């Protein structure tokens, strides 16, 4: 019996007990109706959304800092801090005007110079920002409310870049803070968003507190994801960090917390069985599972060996290892873009469909010159997702007759080791597993893992001129129809050259007590529009 089994059994039993009506006077009271207690996906260990790009930092930052534009559920950037924008006929000069009433949490007004400093810091770290910086002539404040971005060549994705929810987002902060070196952590957390960060109450690893910013003036439009009016209906949000899922489940059932961002699949049936708890898919964009292969070393420096993996792998095996029997939580993914989004395509994805052909895959491996050398598969055991994927891959490699050097380690070690380009026998690697938020995979803008520019590419260093050409074409595309055509070609090239092996598309649940209302589906937890009764 392992820890997980015990945890699952007890949580199950506790769920039955609670739904069976073991109610008693609660000694462990929930917070007041004006305080929402939220269990986030991870610890908020730092709070500089430009310096640290972890999802949890981005999610917290979206409460405190506002953006010029916000992406809605159609992936269209809508005005947020901006009142109007104008682009010159040659597409080179963008002029933006800020909307009135914008204030930072320290009471100072948001000025164009703050925006300029913020965009300068952001563009030193963000992939789209770097592209803009590379073609920038000047970025200047025209007056207190107007700023101008002059480019050397048109950049049709400008508004998407400024409004995207992918980390790092183009958050606006006061000039004095934004002047911090983008590679150093800032120490003041002043934004103009709907919540203020209570720094004095921050205990990294335990608690982070956000208070309603009463001077925030929301837009009048209906809130949709990161766009529209961010109406705050609670006074205070407390993030309670709980590393143990069983504890989080028990705390939610007991009313000690109000909302748990991402319950683990094992515990969801218990939560669903509790009449006081609502459970639903949290982020409709889900996640794309990825099996990264190192393109630098034999046998996988030969495309035939990489295709052998695609030909043999069963995405269903990967997904079932992760989500069990809940079919609503996964989909096969014969492509690289997020299912259900405009650019999703299966063009060129046939190799991932249908019956798996181990014999043909073995033949391809032989043609690639594989002769039984050990294949170093680095697997983080402390992440349930990578552990599940790693176990399936080990089995797959054995079926293919490969010798597996299974390196079971932690995510911190994988993170360091995957950066090594040395041969696997000298500390390098052949393969590791990860996953990408579906929001990052809706298009190539923030999709580093899709890039195939050799040495400059993401870990595995794929080199595919076809992919790179089409990515450039996507950035230059002027309409969605044009983008869709290009996306089809990107998908085909990425699968043909096996930039990485997609293991499937999977979703996760979120759970909240029914005293909480207004929990909306979205790419991040959205706290505006959420209210709570006592």
């Amino acid at each position, binding site marked *: 019996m392992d820890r997980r089994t015990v945890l699952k059994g007890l949580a199950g039993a506790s769920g039955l007990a609670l739904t069976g009506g073991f109610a008693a006077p609660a000694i462990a009271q929930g917070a007041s109706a004006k305080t929402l207690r939220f269990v986030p996906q991870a610890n908020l260990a730092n709070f500089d959304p430009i310096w640290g*790009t972890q999802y949890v930092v981005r999610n917290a930052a979206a409460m405190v800092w506002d953006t010029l534009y916000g992406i809605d559920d159609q992936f269209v950037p809508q005005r947020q801090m901006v009142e109007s924008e104008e682009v010159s006929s040659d597409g080179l000069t963008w002029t933006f005007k800020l909307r009135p009433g914008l204030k930072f949490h320290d009471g100072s007004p948001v000025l164009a110079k703050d925006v300029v400093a913020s965009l300068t810091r952001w563009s030193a770290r963000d992939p789209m920002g770097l592209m803009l910086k590379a073609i920038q002539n000047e970025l200047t404040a025209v007056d207190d409310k107007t700023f101008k971005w002059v480019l050397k060549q048109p950049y049709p994705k400008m508004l998407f870049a400024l409004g995207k929810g992918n980390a790092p987002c183009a958050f606006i902060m006061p000039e004095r803070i934004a002047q911090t070196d983008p590679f150093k952590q800032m120490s003041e957390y002043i934004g103009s968003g709907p919540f203020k960060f209570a720094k004095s109450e921050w205990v990294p690893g335990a608690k982070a507190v956000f208070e309603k910013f009463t001077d925030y003036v929301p837009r009048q439009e209906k809130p949709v994801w990161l766009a529209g009016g961010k109406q705050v209906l609670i006074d205070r949000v407390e993030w309670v960090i709980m590393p143990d899922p069983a504890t989080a489940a028990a705390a939610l059932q007991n009313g000690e917390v109000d909302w748990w961002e991402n319950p683990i699949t094992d515990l969801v049936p218990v939560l669903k069985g509790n009449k006081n708890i609502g459970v639903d898919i949290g982020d409709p964009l889900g996640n794309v599972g990825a099996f990264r292969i190192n393109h630098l070393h034999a046998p996988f420096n030969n495309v035939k060996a990489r295709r052998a993996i695609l030909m043999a792998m069963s995405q269903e095996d990967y997904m079932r290892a992760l989500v069990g029997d809940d079919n609503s939580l996964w989909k096969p993914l014969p492509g690289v873009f997020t299912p259900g989004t405009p650019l999703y395509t299966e063009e060129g994805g046939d190799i991932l469909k249908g019956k798996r052909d181990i014999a043909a895959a073995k033949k391809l491996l032989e043609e690639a010159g594989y002769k039984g050398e050990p294949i170093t598969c680095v697997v983080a055991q402390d992440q349930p997702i990578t552990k599940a994927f790693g176990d399936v891959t080990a089995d797959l490699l054995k079926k293919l007759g490969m010798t597996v050097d299974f390196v079971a380690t932690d995510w911190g070690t994988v993170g360091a080791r995957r950066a090594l380009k040395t041969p696997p026998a000298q500390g390098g690697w052949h393969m590791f597993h990860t996953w990408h938020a579906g929001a990052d995979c809706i298009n190539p803008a923030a999709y580093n893992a899709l890039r195939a520019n050799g040495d400059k590419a993401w870990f595995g260093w794929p080199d595919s001129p076809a992919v790179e050409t089409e990515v450039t074409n996507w950035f230059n595309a002027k309409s969605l129809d044009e983008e869709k055509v290009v996306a089809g070609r990107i998908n085909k090239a990425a699968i043909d050259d096996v930039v990485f092996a997609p293991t499937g598309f999977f979703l996760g649940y979120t759970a909240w007590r029914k005293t909480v209302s207004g929990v909306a589906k979205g790419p991040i937890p959205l706290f505006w529009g959420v209210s709570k009764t006592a």
Partner: protein
Amino acid sequence: MLAYALRRVLSTLPVMAIVALFVFSLLYIAPGDPAVVIAGDQASPADVERIRANLGLDQPFLVQFGSWVWRLLHFDLGTSIFTNLPVAAMIAQRIEPTLSLMMVTLFLTIFIAVPLGVIAAWKAGTWIDRTIMAFAVFGFSVPVFVVGYILAYVFALQLDWLPVQGYTPLAQGFWPWLQNLILPAVALGCVYIALIARITRAAMLEVLQQDYIRTARAKGLGQGGILFIHALKNAAVPIVTVVGIGIALLIGGAVVTESVFAIPGLGRLTIDAILRRDYPVIQGIVLLFSFVYVLVNLLIDITYTLVDPRIRY
């Protein structure tokens, strides 16, 4: 005695220095890189390098070690790589919950385990002895997290007597403070109770066979007086030793207990720091723990003189 205590305190300095060097060296050679964790999945290798340089992680071992020791000599434990907060402040934030948990656990343990051990020795070979020892085996065998989940299930979820998780500072009231600590202390104390009960029983059995106990019985002394005044005092040295050793068990156990009960203490801080490779925090905590351990051993040695007048330093 004072000179001895002073000598012992001073002797902790070389121990601490060796611990410091050992910990620093281990972290230096350990795989993992905080810059990679900070940079996130989307960062380029150049970004990672720049972050490493900013953190000084690209410096040679001796430079990094020298700079850390220099700060240490100025009573500066450094700044967390991730939170940008001083390590001393982070430890200060977390020390109260851990100290509270350990104190309540120790209190529970001593007041349960010692009487159990005495009774088991007194009733050696009977069903009472066997029952107590069976509980001791259970305490040894069942992991802290299992006991923790069972307690949370029964006393928090079913009976709703106590909270599942969290910590309330003592400043907010004794009962709110205690109610958050009862379940974790019992969970953490199980193995410790088992250990001390067994040691107490063994020590008492030996003492109860001594001539002076027979003499005490012969002169008509009551059972309670024999057990708790004459026998227990003479059996105290090994018990006190095990209590000291047990502090190390408590420190280790606190890591798991604090995770299970979401207590924001040093144990969780340690785990978080290790997983993220937050070197200054790990170094600060290990130094603190080693200092506490050395100090506890000193206190134990001094306690020997109180329970056994023959021992003199």
